[in-house]
C-alpha cells in the first residue's frame, strides 16, 4: 500500500480513537461516583478496587488520548494501553451479558444500557487500535 495512504489511515485512526477516549474519559472524570457504580455493577472487582478504578481509569483514558494526539514519545505506549483497555472492556461487556446482568454500560459516562451492539462497537473500535499499534511503529506519523 502507498506509504502516504497508510500514514493518512494511521493519522485518521489516531484522531478517531483519541476523540472517542477523550469523550469517554470526560464524562467519567466529572462523575466518579456514577462511574464507580457502573464498575461495581459488573460484579468483577471488590469495593476497594472499585473506588481506585473509578478515580484512575478515566485519567488513564484521557492521558492516553492526549499521547495519541501529541507528537509524543509515549504514543506507542498509549496504543498498547488503549488496545489493552479495549480488550478488557470488551471482555467485561461479554461477561456481563452472558451472566444476564441488566446494567448500564458505563462506557462513555452515559447511561446507555448494555447490549450486544455495544460489544460490536467495541470490536469495531479495536480495529483501528490494532492497525495503528502495528503500523504507527513502522510508518510513524506526526
Amino acid at each position, binding site marked *: 500500500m502507498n506509504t502516504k495512504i497508510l500514514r493518512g489511515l494511521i493519522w485518521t485512526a489516531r484522531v478517531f480513537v483519541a476523540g472517542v477516549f477523550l469523550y469517554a474519559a470526560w464524562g467519567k*472524570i466529572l462523575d*466518579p*461516583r456514577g462511574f*464507580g*457504580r457502573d464498575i*461495581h*455493577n459488573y460484579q468483577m472487582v471488590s*469495593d*476497594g478496587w*472499585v*473506588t481506585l478504578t*473509578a*478515580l*484512575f*481509569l*478515566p*485519567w*488513564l483514558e*484521557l*492521558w*492516553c488520548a492526549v*499521547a495519541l494526539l501529541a*507528537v*509524543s*514519545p*509515549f*504514543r*506507542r*505506549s*498509549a496504543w*498498547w*494501553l488503549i488496545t489493552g483497555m479495549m480488550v478488557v472492556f470488551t471482555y467485561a461487556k461479554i461477561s456481563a451479558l452472558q451472566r444476564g*446482568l*441488566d*446494567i*448500564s454500560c458505563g462506557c462513555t459516562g452515559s*447511561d*446507555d*444500557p448494555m*447490549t450486544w451492539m455495544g460489544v460490536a462497537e467495541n470490536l469495531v473500535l479495536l480495529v483501528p487500535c490494532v492497525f495503528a499499534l502495528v503500523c504507527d*511503529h513502522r510508518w*510513524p506519523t506526526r
Partner: protein
Amino acid sequence: MKSSPSATCFGIVYLIAVSLVTGLMSRGLSSDPLPWDHAWSEGLREEVLAAGFEVVDTSEMRRLVEEGRHLILDARSMQEYDMGQIPGAMPLPIGDFEDHFLGIAPILSPDSPLIAYCSSAECDQALILAERLREAGYPNVKIYLDGWKAWNAEVGP
C-alpha cells in the same frame, strides 16, 4: 517516532503513574470526594435511599397500580418493554430519554406522582431515570426497586 521495547514499557509505566497521580489529585480537589471505604456492595437500595427516593415493594406497588394515581415509567429498553410491562406503565428508556420524554412531558406537572422501575433490584436504570426526572423538575418520584422480574413472578403480566 520509533521507540524501543524498553522505551515503550517505560512509557506505559509513566502513563499509568501520571494517571494515578492526577486521579488522586482530582479526588483531593473535589468538593465531594469519593470515600475510600465507600460500600458499593451494600447495594442499590442504600444508594436509592441515600439519593432521597422512596422505595416501593411489590405489595405497595400493586396497591398503587390499582389506585391509578401514579404515572408508572418503565426505564428498560423498548424491546424489553414490548415483551411485557406493569399495567399502565409508559416506556421511558434511559438510553433514549430525550425523545421519549418529549411525548410524556405534556401530561406531567411538577408535582405529578411518578414511579420508575427497570428489570430487577440489580439494575440501576430506574435510579438513573429518577435522577433525570428530578433534574428535569419532577421530584415526586418513587422507585419500584424489585422491578419487572419480581412483578412478573409475584403478580403476573
